[in-house]
Structure formats: C-alpha cells, structure tokens
C-alpha cells in the first residue's frame, strides 16, 4: 500500500509547501497552512494489502496493545533483595493472523499481561507477554504447561544449565500438565527473548511460543553519560516514562506447513499497523523500539525506517549505540536490539517502516507511524 501512497502523500506535501509560506515565518501573520489537506492519506493502498479486518476481540489479544504492554510480573523482596515473579502458561489455541486466515498455534500467556488483566483470565497470546525486569533482580518464572504437548521456556540470558529450558538437561521438557519454576538472576541488561526449546524445535518456535524479555540496566551501576542512558532505559525511572517505548516481535506463519511463511508480521497480525491503523507518535517525544526477530524459515529479517534515521543497540547490552545514524538494520533469528529515534521537528504525517526484504513487507510486515 505504502510506496505509491506515500509517494503521493509526499508529493502533496511538497505542493502545499511550495504554495504557502513556511509555518515558522508566518505562524501569526497568515492562517496556518492547511496541514490536514497536505498530510491526510488518501486511503489509496495502491492495491496492495489484505481484504477485511482481523477480529482482535476473538483473538483476545491485539498487536496495538502488545506494542506497549510490558509485563513486569509481581515484585517482592527476600532478604533485602528484589525478586520478580511471573506465572507463565503454555496453551494450544487458534488465532487470526491475517483477515480470515486462522493459525492453529501454541502460545504463552501470563495472568499479568495487559490482555489477561483486561479480560480477567489468562490469555494465551502471540507473541507471548513482554517480560520486563531490572538488572540484578532474582527472577522466578513458574511455568505451567496447559498445552497438549511438552514444552519448555528457554531464556536468552545468563543462568545455570538446569535453568536453560532444553530437553535432557535439568527438568528437560515439561509434559502436558507439568510445572517447573525457572529461577535465575536478571543479567546481562538488554533486549532479549524467551522461547520454547522442546523438540522438534523449529515447529515449537514457529507455532508461536516466544516473546520479548527485557532486562533494564540498573543506573546505580554506571556513572556519567552511561548512568543517564541507564536511567532512560530503566522502566522504574521518571526519565524512562518520558520515552515512548514499543516492542515488536518479528514473526512469520507458515499456514500450509510447506516450510515457507505465508504471513509475515510485527506482533503476529499482517499489516496490523497499516495506514488505517497506524501507531500514533507524539513529535516531541523520544522513541524507543525493542525489536526481536523470531521469524522461522527465513535466514534474516530487517527493519527500515522511512524518512528518518535511528541509533541501534545490538542486543541492547550496551549503553552506547552499536550503530549510529542508520535507517536499516538486519537481524538473524533470535537477534534483537533497541532502536532509538525521534520525529522532533518533522512534519506531521504517515511515516512508513517495514522489512527491507520487500517480499516480507508485502506479505504483512510493514506499518506506519502517524506522527502528530
């Protein structure tokens, strides 16, 4: 939808600029230029896109809710040390990944996710809830396998072998009806992920058992510029509240099980953030996007931000960007990172983002920021 539509939009904007004085000089002297006419999209998708709407109510989870939902579990203290606990369920369920297309998946859910709190029961969602904690905390994840298949939770992080959530080591695969508590320290800080590691691994990941796992840095451990960066990244600080934080898990679905994805998405639903449902962005607010790639079958995935550049923190394990001023990065499966950018001073309008493997974009992994 976007390329032609966006080009049209830019053309219109250009025209509007040429015909009217720039707002900076004439804000008080002349009426404001008709920004609405210049920036509203025509709704012309250029023909590309899906037909119909996904029933998010039936899915019980919504990509727009998942985008900004950080599940911080339950925080307690033991012997003066913070302990963060989650209950994590694995369930079998079907959900809609593109209008009218249903996928028989296996998914995770917690009682503390936004969807579960909204509906008053544990919602199995895809991607799983974004678990968020702070560096140095003791983490306990009570895993309850309510699915009809054996599963595990394998966290990308630092922990002992028995807590690794793989077959044959420690508790191994947790059978249907089984329980296990994974326990380890939150380290290193960064943007990580968790996923099922039961065999056959490819199928268990592709079915939907994955989610983002974010460990915020502890500002007390750093100094100077790094401490400021850590404060901004730590969800318990006021500095962090000033940033618009989003999470996107890049995934794909092979609906006919031929080893190739029919649907690609950020947060499961194809074109979830399309022109009709863009992500609202306040111009004056800094933006942070936690991006995790779990796409099965394809060697890499990527993100390209239109008309803007970003700083990138590969794995999120540093407080200084690993890539400065880039507009495209790629990630292999399980690679992840943090994008920081801003639309300050930009003209309002729809700004596109998508995988720059264009096939993935046109099969669902694309969207828009509605900069206001």
């Amino acid at each position: 939808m976007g390329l032609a539509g966006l080009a049209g939009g830019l053309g219109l904007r250009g025209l509007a600029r040429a015909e009217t004085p720039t707002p900076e000089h004439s804000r008080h002297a002349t009426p404001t230029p008709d920004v609405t006419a210049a920036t509203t999209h025509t709704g012309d998708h250029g023909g590309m896109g899906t037909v119909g709407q996904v029933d998010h109510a039936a899915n019980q989870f919504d990509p727009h809710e998942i985008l900004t939902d950080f599940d911080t579990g339950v925080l307690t203290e033991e012997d003066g040390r913070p302990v963060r606990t989650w209950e994590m369920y694995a369930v079998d369920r079907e959900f809609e990944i593109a209008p009218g297309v249903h996928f028989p998946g296996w998914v995770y859910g917690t009682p503390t996710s936004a969807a579960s709190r909204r509906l008053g029961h544990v919602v199995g969602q895809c991607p799983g809830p974004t678990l968020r904690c702070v560096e140095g905390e003791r983490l306990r994840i009570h895993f309850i396998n309510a699915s009809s298949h054996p599963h595990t939770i394998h966290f990308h992080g630092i922990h002992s072998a028995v807590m690794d959530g793989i077959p044959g080591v420690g508790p191994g695969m947790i059978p249907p009806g089984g329980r296990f508590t994974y326990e380890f320290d939150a380290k290193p800080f960064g943007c990580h992920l968790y996923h099922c590691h039961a065999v056959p691994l490819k199928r268990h990941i592709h079915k939907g058992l994955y989610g983002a796992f974010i460990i915020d840095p502890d500002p007390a451990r750093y100094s100077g510029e790094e401490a400021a960066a850590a404060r901004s990244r730590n969800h318990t600080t006021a500095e962090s509240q000033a940033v618009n934080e989003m999470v996107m898990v890049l995934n794909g679905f092979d609906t006919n099980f031929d080893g190739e994805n029919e649907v690609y998405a950020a947060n499961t639903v194809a074109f979830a953030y399309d022109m009709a449902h863009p992500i609202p962005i306040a111009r004056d607010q800094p933006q942070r996007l936690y991006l995790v790639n779990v796409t099965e079958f394809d060697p890499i995935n990527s993100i390209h931000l239109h008309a803007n550049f970003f700083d990138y923190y590969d794995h999120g394990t540093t407080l200084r960007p690993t890539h400065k001023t880039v507009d495209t990065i790629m990630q292999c499966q399980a690679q992840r990172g943090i994008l920081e950018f801003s639309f300050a001073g930009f003209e309002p309008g729809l700004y596109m983002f998508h995988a720059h493997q264009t096939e993935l974009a046109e099969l669902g992994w694309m969207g828009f920021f509605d900069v206001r």
Partner: protein
Amino acid sequence: MDTTTTLPKRTLPPWLLALLPLLLLALLVAGFLALDPLRFFQGAFPPLEELSVQRVLFPEPGRIRLEVLNGGPDPVTIAQVTVDDAYWLHTISPDNTLGRLETATIDLAYPWVAGEPLPINLITATGVTFPAEVEVAVRSATVDGGTLLAYGLLGIYVGVIPVALGMLWYPFMRRVDRKWLNAILALTVGLLVFLFVDTLLEALELAAETPGVFQGVPVVIFGALLSLGILLAVGRRAGEQTPRRVAALIALGIGLHNFGEGLAIGAAFATGAAALGSFLVVGFTLHNITEGVGIVAPLTRRERPPLRVFILLALLAGAPAILGTWIGGLAFSPFLAAFFLSLGAGAILQVIWEVGKLLLRDAQREGRPALTWLNFGGAVVGVLVMYLTAFLVK
C-alpha cells in the same frame, strides 16, 4: 410347483417391491445421519479443501480476473489473495465461501506486465494455499469480429488447409498399383493409430487438470467408448461399408480430433503458452497434412467422386478445428476439452477398425494375406511420419 402358484398371492404389489430397497436405503441413511456412528473418528478429519483455478483472465491492463471452482467435498472460504508474493486487494463474487461445486469470480486491480509470468496464490481460512500459475500474462481475448477472425484463421491453418492439401494426392493415388494402394491404406491405419494414442494421451493429460470430483480419467475412457460404440452401431445399420462412407467416417473421426486440437491451440494462444505461435501453427499444418491422405485413401478403389464430396470431406475433417480454436481461445475448460478429445479418440478407433476391414476384405477377395510386409511397412511409415512431424509441435 405348488409354491410357484401360491407365491404371487403372498407377494406385495410390484411397485412396492420395486421401491422396497430404496425405502430401506432412505431409512438407513436417515439413521446413519441421526446416530452419526462416525463421530468416533472426529478430529482425525481435517477439512478437505480443494479449490481449482479454472481460468486466469487479463481482461485489460491493470485488471486480473480468476474463475475458481470448489471441487472438494467441504466448503472453502477464500480469505486472502497474493499476487507475486504480495497480499492484494480483491473482490470475490458472489461470495468468498464456496460450497461444493460452487464457483466464484475474483477481481483484482493489479498492474500486470504483459509477457511475464505471474504467480497468484489463494489462501483459505485454514491457511491452505492454492496456486494459479500464469505462464505468461497476456491480455485475454474478447468476443469480437477481429478475435473470431484471428482464431478462425488459426483453425483454418491447422485444420482445413492441411486436410485439403493432403487430399490433393488423390489423383496420384488413383494411378498407383493396387498393391501399393493397399500399402497407402495401411499407412492411413498407421497414422490413425498414432492419432488415437496422441488424442487419448492428450485427453488424459487434460483430465488430470480437472477437479477430482469430475472424475476426468473415467470420463475420458467412457467418452472414447461412447463414440466408438455409437459409430460402430451406425456403421452396422447399412451392411457393408461403401468406400465413400468409410471416407466420411475417417473424416468425422479426424474432425473430432482436430476439434480437440483446435481447443488446445486456442487455449495455448489465449493463455500465452504458445509463445512461438507461428512456428507451432506451421508445425500443425505439416503434421496434419497426412490426415488428408488418410481420408481419400478408401476412395481410390472406385470411380472418382464429384468435387463437392471432396470439399465436404475436407470441411468435415478440418472445419471443427475452427470451432475448437474459438472455444479454446474464449472459453477453455480442461474438462470439456478432455471430453471432446476422448470422443475423437473413440471415433479414430472406429475408423481404424473400418479401414482395417477394408484391407482385410480386399485381401480375402484376392486370396492373399492382409498383413503383408508391404502393408505392415506402410503402417509403420504412417506412425513414423506422424511421430517425426510431431517434433514440430511438441
């Protein structure tokens, strides 16, 4: 003896006896549906989805139309359509859920590029995909004078002209020795055998493309048996076959074959599959020239028939190709094409039978065996000629 006289008294009226098995069957079906003894297997039955894309049309630049048929036992819902690996907006009429044997039309506004392949995929509600492969995107023919003329000319080139040209060997054939004339008849048998095999295989190939519910392969076999049976019965009615009637039967069989051939050629041009079109047409012209020889071969043994007989024979054998290219170009259906080709195969089989008998009778009259080396050689040459000229069209 007693029982034979007493039994009728105890039996029910005949109409009731005739209905009895049907009544019991209805009861059984009702009971089966009510009790559902198969529920034990439930969960083991995934929905059986079977969509087939009957035709992909490119009515104008920027427009694509697909005709889809549900040939499976369960209803199918078309959820999305991708064109060249991109989800594309579309409309489906009358409905995106197709019951058994229902059809739907899908319209897309897509900037297709003439002369390029275009993979299209239908994704159903359960995520199953059904491809519609477009070998080459070519603007579809519409019914107008120019199109009819163009496709009609194709039919004339591959049907009427070669048959008429082949018939021009008639004066030559009249002058050759009887022994050689029989060899020419044997040659006719040879080329008819080739045509039979070729037609049947083509029919089976098309049958494989038809949705399973239509049972394409059995239809081809029964189609061939049907035309064979009808023509045999027609032939039996009037005792011994006159050469003119044998020639007419050959022309009819070849005409049915050419109709099928016309369908295939018309469809190939319409779908862009015949990229090297002119070469293909020349090939068919050469390939079919021998058909004319076959038709007039039986006429050499009596006095020369009037010219109009030749013209009628040429039209009977050649003109169906025109009809074929029209239908193939404008409304191709693999199922109908397979069926007509199978009728042609049956008709050719019957002609082989008739010409064979002609040879046999001739040999009996002369007190010689029918299968001389010369006749056998003639048949082999017939097959070979067809085989080698087929190189031009395969």
